């Protein structure tokens, strides 16, 4: 090596550190070890060491910052920059969150070490299976696209068998070394008890079961049970707990034998190997890792409990010929833990890692996907999202290409809704939504190289697929879904993605979203690398309703656009109405609001009510609902309510949907804006109105308050479930709307909250989800 390469060695395992770090330093690397570790899982084999810091050539302030970093938690931008600048290789523990963080943000060589997995578990599953029963395929896609600088270093040869093809291809055999793995033959015997090691009996179900089985099968033989206990096992005097060195040495040199229970084919504990080192006879169960390490014909191998008992009894009886046979033959098991043996493979592995072709950072492609045919709020959000992002990409000269995708729909045949994006050189792509069955999913995973280790149980039977007629977004490195409504079935999307969740209205208005649709939404959210929410209340809902890991829920700025219509244009001598901008969705609290209006007019309310919004034309009592795309039963109730009440017929004017400029004029001429809905992510009529100098009377719910506070708008709130409260609000606004209007912020102050001012913030949040190069 021309210059010493620097490695971030992300483990706290004491024994691993004792062997691997000196070996790597000896091979010419500078190695940094993490200094912060929380023992929340009771991991006694972990520790922290400053021993190797003196060998580092890092600037002191950098070393200090790293030493203050908890690498098991999200990393700051500055730490990630340090890692990218100062480290050539990362050796990482196979914890999905940590691996994903580096896959996203680290551009050097990433090596994940895998050793000791229970059952048929593989690193593929470990990395892609999320705790809440969904498979996150995005992490595999990131590995696939890295190709040249991702490696899986496996501690045992047979670990490779269970990996998906993708990870098999990048796996290297880099065996685990054991300190002084040579037989020392210090065992003397003389204490007629067997030793069995079983830690954490009261705190770990696996060990509790192992303990019970041991007591059941071998409890009658004289024995002690070693291993640290978090809670003492008071009812069993044979359980010794943690022992001081002298007692430990006594046990390993004097007790008659060790019994090792594990039949895990791909996991082994250190203690049977320790026993072999001391020269103590080891009786172990067949079918476990020791078979693989050369133990298949050993005399200490027991094929059944009866066989093990028989062999242990012979050892307890002091059968010297058998003892010699066992101790001599078992030495073979240490061979693959030997320093020289391991070093040989590590040198080959590191050479392979070093010689991989490093392809210069290629242009990243980010897809912004509008998953359903929107033309309202979500459409506006998506367009603003793209404009902001594209602008920042150009300012920062980022090595990124942005594409926008929308579903094929007749709505978009009428006019070019996306010309604004095309003008900004954003590639626009159409896709269709298909539903596919389990057989297809499995075939896809197999072709993608993700089988055989994707947990089949976590896959749905039918899925929604987005087909763009090309690579089906396989050409994209990352995607941002502009909403969580993607088809009627769980989303199947190979590329990693962030999903924007605007609200959890189903939590507050259950009838607004069916239980099945909610289930699908939650599934889609859990598969996402992260969620973008635009208000703190929605963030809380994501955590508490969607059960999303708080670290993955990112509060992004709301993308507000204020009307271009000048608030000073048009002088109204006398304002005579207030504006209720709504739509025909059943969760908009119409019926209660109409009751309130009726009471308001009965009590002499003088202002007219003008209703506008998508499909509100169907509120008119005589309107035909034959082809109306609305919930007919609900709309009929509204029609009847208005029809039956003369006061409502007299005072309400229903305008239906209207062009934006007409709406703005209408809003400008209103005394105030009225918003009786709730449960959504806040209503933008309030911000529109404020910008036009018009105050608002709105339902009091957290997201509405968040939005108004964000924009600095003072709103007169009411309880949306209390008709009297609404009526009081209406009367008060009728009296005080001019006073309220004067308390609104100036237009330029408001404008600073508009989406264009949020571009940099949004861009930086996006860069945390998918790292890319910048020329600036």
């Amino acid at each position, binding site marked *: 090596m021309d210059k010493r390469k620097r490695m971030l060695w992300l483990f706290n395992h004491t024994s691993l550190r004792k062997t691997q770090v000196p070996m790597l330093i000896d091979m010419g690397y500078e190695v940094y070890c993490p200094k912060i570790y929380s023992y929340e899982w009771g991991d006694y084999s972990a520790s922290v060491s400053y021993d190797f810091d003196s060998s580092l050539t890092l600037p002191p302030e950098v070393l200090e910052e790293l030493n203050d970093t908890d690498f098991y938690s999200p990393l700051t931008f500055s730490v990630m920059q340090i890692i990218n600048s100062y480290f050539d290789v990362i050796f990482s523990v196979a914890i999905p969150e940590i691996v994903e963080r580096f896959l996203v943000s680290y551009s050097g060589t990433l090596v994940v070490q895998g050793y000791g997995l229970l059952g048929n578990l593989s690193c593929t599953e470990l990395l892609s299976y999320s705790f809440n029963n969904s498979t996150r395929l995005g992490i595999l896609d990131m590995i696939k696209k890295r190709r040249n600088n991702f490696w899986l270093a496996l501690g045992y040869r047979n670990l490779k068998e269970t990996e998906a093809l993708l990870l098999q291809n990048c796996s290297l055999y880099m065996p685990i070394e054991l300190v002084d793995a040579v037989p020392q033959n210090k065992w003397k015997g003389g204490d007629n008890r067997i030793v069995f090691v079983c830690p954490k009996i009261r705190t770990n179900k696996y060990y509790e079961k192992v303990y019970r089985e041991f007591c059941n099968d071998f409890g009658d033989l004289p024995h002690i049970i070693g291993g640290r206990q978090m809670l003492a096992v008071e009812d069993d005097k044979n359980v010794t707990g943690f022992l001081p060195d002298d007692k430990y040495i006594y046990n390993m040199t004097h007790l008659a034998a060790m019994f090792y229970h594990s039949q895990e084919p791909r996991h082994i504990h250190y203690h049977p190997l320790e026993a072999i080192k001391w020269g103590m006879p080891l009786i172990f169960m067949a079918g476990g890792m020791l078979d693989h390490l050369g133990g298949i014909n050993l005399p200490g191998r027991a094929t059944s409990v009866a066989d093990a008992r028989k062999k242990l009894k012979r050892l307890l009886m002091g059968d010297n010929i058998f003892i010699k046979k066992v101790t001599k033959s078992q030495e073979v098991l240490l061979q693959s833990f030997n320093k020289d043996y391991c070093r040989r493979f590590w040198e080959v592995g590191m050479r392979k890692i070093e010689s*991989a072709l490093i392809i210069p950072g290629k242009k990243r492609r980010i897809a912004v996907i509008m998953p359903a045919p929107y033309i309202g709020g979500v459409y506006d959000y998506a367009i603003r999202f793209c404009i902001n992002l594209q602008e920042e990409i150009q300012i920062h000269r980022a090595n990124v290409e942005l594409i926008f995708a929308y579903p094929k729909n007749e709505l978009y045949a009428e006019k070019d809704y996306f010309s604004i994006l095309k003008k900004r050189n954003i590639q626009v792509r159409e896709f269709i939504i298909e539903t596919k069955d389990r057989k297809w*999913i499995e*075939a896809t995973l197999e072709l993608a190289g993700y089988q055989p280790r994707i947990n089949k149980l976590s896959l749905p039977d039918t899925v929604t697929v987005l*087909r763009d007629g*090309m690579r089906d977004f396989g050409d994209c490195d990352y995607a941002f879904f502009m909403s969580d409504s993607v088809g009627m079935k769980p989303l199947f999307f190979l590329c990693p993605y962030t999903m924007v969740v605007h609200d959890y209205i189903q939590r507050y208005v259950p009838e607004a979203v069916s239980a099945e649709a909610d289930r699908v939404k939650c599934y889609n959210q859990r598969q996402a690398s992260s969620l973008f929410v635009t208000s703190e209340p929605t963030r809380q809902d994501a955590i508490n309703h969607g059960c999303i890991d708080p670290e993955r829920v990112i509060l992004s700025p709301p993308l507000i656009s204020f009307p271009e219509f000048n608030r000073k244009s048009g002088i109204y001598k006398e304002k005579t109405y207030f504006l209720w901008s709504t739509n025909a969705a059943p969760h908009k609290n119409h019926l209660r609001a109409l009751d309130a209006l009726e009471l308001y007019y009965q009590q002499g309310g003088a202002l007219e009510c003008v209703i506008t919004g998508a499909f509100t034309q169907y509120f008119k009592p005589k309107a035909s609902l034959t082809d109306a795309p609305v919930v007919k039963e609900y709309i009929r109730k509204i029609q009847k309510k208005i029809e039956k009440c003369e006061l409502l017929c007299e005072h309400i004017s229903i305008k239906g949907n209207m062009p934006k400029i007409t709406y703005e004029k209408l809003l400008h001429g209103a005394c105030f804006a009225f918003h009786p809905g709730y449960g959504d992510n806040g209503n933008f009529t309030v911000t529109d109105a404020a910008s036009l100098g018009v105050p608002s009377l709105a339902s009091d719910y957290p997201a509405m308050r968040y939005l108004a506070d964000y924009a600095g708008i003072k709103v007169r709130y009411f309880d949306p479930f209390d008709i009297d409260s609404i009526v009081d609000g209406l009367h008060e606004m009728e009296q005080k709307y001019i006073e309220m209007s004067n308390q609104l912020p100036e237009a330029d102050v408001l404008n600073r909250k508009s989406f264009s001012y949020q571009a940099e913030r949004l861009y930086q949040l996006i860069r945390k989800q998918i790292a890319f190069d910048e020329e600036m």
Partner: protein
Amino acid sequence: MRIGVFLGYGPQTILSKEGLGRYIGTLIKGFQDEGHSVVIASPHWLVKSLDGLIDDFSIRKADVECITTTNDPVLWKIYKKIFVKKKRGRLYRLFELILKKIKCFFGWTANKIAQTDSYANFIIFSIPFLFITTAIILPAVILLSVMPFWLVCVILLFGVLSAYVLIKKGGVGLDDLRARLSSSVKAVKSHDISASFFFECMFSLFRIMEHSEQKKLRDAINHCQDMVDVWFVPSLFWPEALNINKGIVVLNAPDLVTEEFPLSYATGGKIYTSAMKGLQFTLQKGKWFITYGDYIRNELLINEYKKSSYQVVAIRHANNNMMPYINIPNAINILNNTRKNYTKAFTESFLGKYSNVRYIFYSSQSRPHKNILNLLKAFEYLLRKRFLPIKLFLTGSFDIYKPIGEYIREHNLEKEVISFYNVPAQKLAALYYCADLVVNPTLYEGGFPFTFGEGMSVGTPSVMSDIPQTREVLEPAGLEDIMFDPYDWKAMAEKIEYALNHKEELYQKELPLYQEMAKRTPEVEAAEYVEAFKYFIAQEAAEKA
């Protein structure tokens, strides 16, 4: 050098019609011309087809040593007897006609049974069915009752064995047998043969049979007395070749398209997944590889399958000159056909009613990664928004990849987009020759696409998609501006429109590259293969030393 060529093709392959088959023919011819001796190993069922290839490419048969399996498997023989079409005699045709009429009669009767509201009619129309059922079942029952017991046992055993093979080796799990049967019924009803359980069973049986023949072939090679310097395996589909121990094994690794487009190819079900397993295995276990370009070498073999760079050599295709296929008297100046001075007689003979039509051309199979949908979008835009009076000629079938046919029908492009499916080489050459422009919108290829050289060899320039496989050739030649972003159909349309308006200029611009490419004759290519073989042999020897 003694070069072995391992051909593990399945039955019914006509080598001289397969792209890869023709490629192999060219190489073998080149090896011979370079003075190397050639050994060809193939299953017995391929012998006839191989003879055809040898004839077509003027390979000296006397100098070719052949290794083959001893006989065809029984399954193939039976299948061939039943399903492979032969010329039928008059009597057979008469029998077929009668069978057809009977089928019609039963169809008519079944309709009547379904429609009738009278019991009398129901009974009358049911008679033919009762009759036919009795006529089939009765002889079978009689036959079984008179058969010796051992024969009944043999038949039953055969049935059980077949089921076992299907379940165990064919990968058919018992758990989903019921689900598969019901899905097969649905598939048959909807004429979706690819999803049919019966089709999958047949496919699995054939797969086992082919695999077993490849094993036998490998054993035959390993039992030969003489060593061969190198065994060249031109495909990744034959993993058994990896176990040849008479000489080093060098594999051609064209691409791994199914892995790049998993969502599209998953629709093909087992056909692709089982093939993929073989490919992946070969890529994992193989040691020496030849690719068609640097991109696949670096991305697939080195980065993905972690081969060392010395294990993989990239050899580009030889130029496919289409000129010899067009036998034009008086040697019309076709070096530059942007002036389109070919004769009416010539175009009419090949293109019939389309002889006066202006068109852009893409010769390719209809497969998802060929990006034909975007080409259709670009074409429709040029036709209907930019009013360019052109057609689009393709050579892929519209039925093989459904979205293409659907798009054409949905947008009423049936008369504008024409498929010349399965055309002979001469007509293909004529299609290139008469085209205004060759457009290649592909998203993925094993190497630099043939279409560029094929078009330029008869004077038609190209515009192509900007993918690494094309960029690695076009960028050094200063031809970046003949590329377009294949994911952006509008960009593709703009490039096509520009090219149509600057054909002459484009042709002149592309000519130097084509002239360079034209120097890559099959002989040059074969020599490069031999060089690669020598290099691998030296590497292997160095490793052993």
